[in-house]
């Protein structure tokens, strides 16, 4: 019996390891070829570099204008997340603390809106925001708030149901107003939900291409996906530069993943299951 268990365990480990290697092989290929010279890539894509070189990186880094591009991504993602966290948690607080027909109707509205695919509102959305001169980062943050509100509101309402109302009532009797109760009592108690909301939206905003491509039209404001796309259009025949650019573009998120992987995976599973 024990032997059988052990065989089972090692078989599983073996399969898991083989699949893992297969799974990271594309990343490996991109990395290993990014430190080859142009002719090395051409001669042997699968092999190790003859003489590893970092010479592709400075060019790719400069062409991506990476410091600025990275900064733009941080501004768009960070700003949009701040807005979505504050606004949706406030909305959820109101919905969860005033049950009744109005709140149910609003909740239902959020649910309906969740079913609308982006493509079916894309054209009027761009026209509407263009008409009021909001095709910029502020407009983008408002769009993300609208598009992401349903899920965030659901998550917050779900979490707030578990917090006893007696708590806010006590605070109000002690002289707090609603906003103070929200800010000093509710928000701190909702930390784990906030982490989930941040994780889910950060991955989306950081990687989003289609919406920013329609909204941000100044080159100096391009985010990483936009810049990568235009870079690739120009350099796709020059794999040595294109691959170095891909590695640079991936570095921030991979580094973050290494440090925060537990939070990221927990956040994802919370968000999907609820």
């Amino acid at each position: 019996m024990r032997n059988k268990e052990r065989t089972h365990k090692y078989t599983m480990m073996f399969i898991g390891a083989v699949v893992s290697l297969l799974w990271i092989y594309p990343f490996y290929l991109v990395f290993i070829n990014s430190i080859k010279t142009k002719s090395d890539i051409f001669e042997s894509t699968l092999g190790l570099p003859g003489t590893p070189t970092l010479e592709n990186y400075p060019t790719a880094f400069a062409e991506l204008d990476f410091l600025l591009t990275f900064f733009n991504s941080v501004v768009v993602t960070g700003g949009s997340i701040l807005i979505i966290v504050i606004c949706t948690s406030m909305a959820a607080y109101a919905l969860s603390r005033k049950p009744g027909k109005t709140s149910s109707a609003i909740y239902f509205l959020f649910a309906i809106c969740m079913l609308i695919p982006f493509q079916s509102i894309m054209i009027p959305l761009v026209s509407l925001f263009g008409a009021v001169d909001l095709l910029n980062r502020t407009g983008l943050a408002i769009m993300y708030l609208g598009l992401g509100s349903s899920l965030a509101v659901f998550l917050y309402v779900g979490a707030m149901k578990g917090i006893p109302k007696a708590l806010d009532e006590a605070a109000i009797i002690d002289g707090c107003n609603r906003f103070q109760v929200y800010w000093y009592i509710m928000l701190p108690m909702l930390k784990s939900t906030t982490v989930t909301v941040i994780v889910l939206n950060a991955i989306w905003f950081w990687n989003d291409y289609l919406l920013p491509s329609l909204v941000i039209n100044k080159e100096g404001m391009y985010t990483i996906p936009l810049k990568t796309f235009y870079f690739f259009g120009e350099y796709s025949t020059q794999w040595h530069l294109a691959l170095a650019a891909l590695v640079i573009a991936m570095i921030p998120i991979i580094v973050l993943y290494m440090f925060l992987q537990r939070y990221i995976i927990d956040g994802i599973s919370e968000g999907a299951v609820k």
Partner: protein
Amino acid sequence: MNFKNRTYWLFLLPTLLALLLVLIIPFFQGVYYSFTEYDGFQVTSFVGFDNYIKLFSDDQFLYSLGFTAAFSAASVIGINVLGLSFALLVTQKLGKVSTLFRTIYFMPNLIGGIILGFIWQFVFLKAFTGIADVTGIEFFRGWLSDTETGFWGLVILFVWQMSGYIMVIYISFLNNVPKELLEAATIDGANKWQSFWKVKFPLIIPAFTVSLFLTLSNAFKVYDQNMALTNGGPFGSTEMATMNIYDTAFKVQDMGYAQSKAIVFLIIITLISVIQLYITRKKETEL
């Protein structure tokens, strides 16, 4: 103690306003535009159902819908089979490597469709050719150069990206299967295979509802990956519905027509989701 009316609306205002501006108004405007000729700046004429009639004889659009449906079917199967297998694998008691495996399988999901598309473009165009040169297996030659390899290329990319995500969902359901049940099954002499099919499987049926819903709607809405990997080529033969809508709107500038396609797209997605939820919910209660 309930909210005062004024505070209640004040708390809801920013989010509701955004919902109104971003989804509700554009939705109704979109329905209106679909009955007009519209160039993005002004409506030049009201055309009734003309756009919708035209759409049914638009071969490229119909083709892109079919292509999207086939892509979604293949992806949904691949993602759920692999996602569930991964989840079962990492929930065996393997110690620390479980976490490592989980981390690796999930990784592609963190990176955007544009970058993933370019990564696989390199793999299919250069690395596959390299494999063909080394091994002499012709299967690896000429990827993305025709419809079939373009199709499977997209499926492989999307399965690689999404399996880890779906794995996470299955893991959280598997972790909720009561240990006593599994122990009881083992004592009664069930082997691993039996305890999966007879104990775990019925208990994780709700995970299928969530996973099928997510993968199906995500597969239908794929755009970035399509653009970065094949850009619809060769000759529009790997163009998905979303790309067809985008191109009609922003390249051809025929916005009214594009909007009618977008409405059809909305109806299809909603129908599929509703039917799929209905079927799996029914299965859930049967078991």
